[in-house]
């Protein structure tokens, strides 16, 4: 699959949006879907549909196998050791809530500390906040440096002997900073602290290797990874899934149910209560297939080239200020324009067919720290081209013209 032709795999680009070609630069929010994924959903519902794992009839058996095939595909893609370390959730947000809730239940008590960073998305802060409120634990934040980046040292500084878990993003959805997870995990483990990684932004853009990173938990958002909405993946080391209590309760995750007690099923069923997102899981196999066909190395190179090209364009555009200049950066170009509010930018760009996002991108703490209420963000997907970034730049110029800048 040639990366230059990849746009053709995404039917959405065949349609005009308000009479413009769509320049989609909002992939950090959610990616577009390749036809193979949409077709898979269609075929599953129209030819093969059944619920998973509960009936012995033909369609149910087939669906169960397809469902489990995706688990294997994900395991391989992220190089997890065991298939049962892959838990399907409704999204990355649920994956993080699952860990915060169950780890919190079992291991956290008043006075314990959790270490986050100032880069974290609300989804990797609010679940921990609940523990602060309900259990009296404390949340510390590793602080960003002047580049909007977090180094191993920034993390080390904030670790205390009460730190019980570290929860950090792999790739910031605002500054694009790629954090040194492997080193952080090594450090944390040397002090007996487990590490949860918010991999929402990294999983679609970087080579995944759980065994190498050695982190304890990793949260992935499938809809940002060319997959269907309503689906996420929690990777967790087997020892944790064995050890932690179940999260939601319902059908499919139990062993035996009596009036006075209940015992829970094996992994990963223990964490997959109720009817799962069957069609979405099955279709996500096609997203993984699609990524495998491109080859993650090609994808990384393509997106890096684009990122560099875009950074240079915007740097040269006066009155545009890029946010964040981290050591390693991926897939995200956040910026402000002097005297023009990000919402006005987004509205004007939209009129030219250029879809970006404006706001705090669910990172209010980071924006507070940067002294901003909002920023504009253009984010990349595999289907983008230099042409798209040229159009972004042109449209920014249009924006400046309207505001007489």
């Amino acid at each position, binding site marked *: 699959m040639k990366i230059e032709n990849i746009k053709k795999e995404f039917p959405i680009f065949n349609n005009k949006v308000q009479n413009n070609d769509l320049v989609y630069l909002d992939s950090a929010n959610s990616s577009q879907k390749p036809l193979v994924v949409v077709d898979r959903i269609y075929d599953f519902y129209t030819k093969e549909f059944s619920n998973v794992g509960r009936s012995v009839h033909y369609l149910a058996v087939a669906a169960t196998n397809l469902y489990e095939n995706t688990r294997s595909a994900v395991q391989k893609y992220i190089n997890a050791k065991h298939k049962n370390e892959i838990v399907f959730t409704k999204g990355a947000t649920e994956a993080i809530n699952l860990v915060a809730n169950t780890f919190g239940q079992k291991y956290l008590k008043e006075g314990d500390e959790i270490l986050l960073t100032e880069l974290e998305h609300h989804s990797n802060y609010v679940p921990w906040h609940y523990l602060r409120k309900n259990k009296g634990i404390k949340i510390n934040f590793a602080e960003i440096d002047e580049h909007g980046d977090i180094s191993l040292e920034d993390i080390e500084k904030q670790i205390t002997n009460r730190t019980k878990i570290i929860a950090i993003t792999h790739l910031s959805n605002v500054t694009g900073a790629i954090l040194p997870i492997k080193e952080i995990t090594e450090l944390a483990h040397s002090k007996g602290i487990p590490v949860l990684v918010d991999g929402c932004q990294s999983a679609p853009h970087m080579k995944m290797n759980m065994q190498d990173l050695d982190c304890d938990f990793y949260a992935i958002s499938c809809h940002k990874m060319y997959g269907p909405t309503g689906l996420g993946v929690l990777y967790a080391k087997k020892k944790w899934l064995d050890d932690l209590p179940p999260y939601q309760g319902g059908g499919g995750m139990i062993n035996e149910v009596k009036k006075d007690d209940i015992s829970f099923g094996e992994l990963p069923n223990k964490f997959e209560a109720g009817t799962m997102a069957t069609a979405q899981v099955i279709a996500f196999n096609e997203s993984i297939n699609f990524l495998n066909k491109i080859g993650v190395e090609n994808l990384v190179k393509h997106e890096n080239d684009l990122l560099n090209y875009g950074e240079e364009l915007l740097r040269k555009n006066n009155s545009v200020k890029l946010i964040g200049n981290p050591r390693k950066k991926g897939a995200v170009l956040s910026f402000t324009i002097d*005297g*023009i*509010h*990000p*919402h*006005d930018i987004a*509205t*004007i760009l939209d*009129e030219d067919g250029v879809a970006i996002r*404006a*706001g*705090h991108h669910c990172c*209010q703490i980071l*924006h507070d720290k940067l002294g901003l*209420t*909002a920023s504009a963000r253009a984010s990349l997907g595999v289907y983008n081209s230099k042409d798209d970034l040229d159009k972004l730049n042109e449209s920014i110029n249009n924006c400046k013209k*309207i*505001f*007489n800048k």
Partner: protein
Amino acid sequence: MNLKELYQEIILDHGKNPRNLGKFDNFNKDAKGHNPLCGDKVHLFLKLDENKKVNDISFEGEGCAISMASASIMTDLMKGKSEKDAKEIIEKFLDMIKEKDDIDTKLLEEDEKTKLMSLGGVKNYPMRVKCATLSWHALSSALEDFQKEVTTE
């Protein structure tokens, strides 16, 4: 083209140089507004005199051109209005932003109406309606003495 309607000169002007910006000392009512989605914020200060007339009004805030311009224009024309009249104007303005073609009130001069109508361009931008109405909701709640922060989403 719609953008021209949205970003008329008067909006760009009020957006860039908002009138009545900043807190004044002897206000006797205030209210905050917040749009959690985009982070826009406004804090409205109001002095009603003994006859329930708007003696002075100002705001602090951060936001896009639309929300700043809307607060600026609103505070400008609320000065000297009675509480009752202010409420009617708010209502009629919100009607216009949401659906009506016109601002249906005798309490405003034609040129004041024209100014307000310049905000009507947001009709075509559903996500931006909240920008235009944030300060108006805050004023409304200041007049009602609501304690709660207004949020629009």
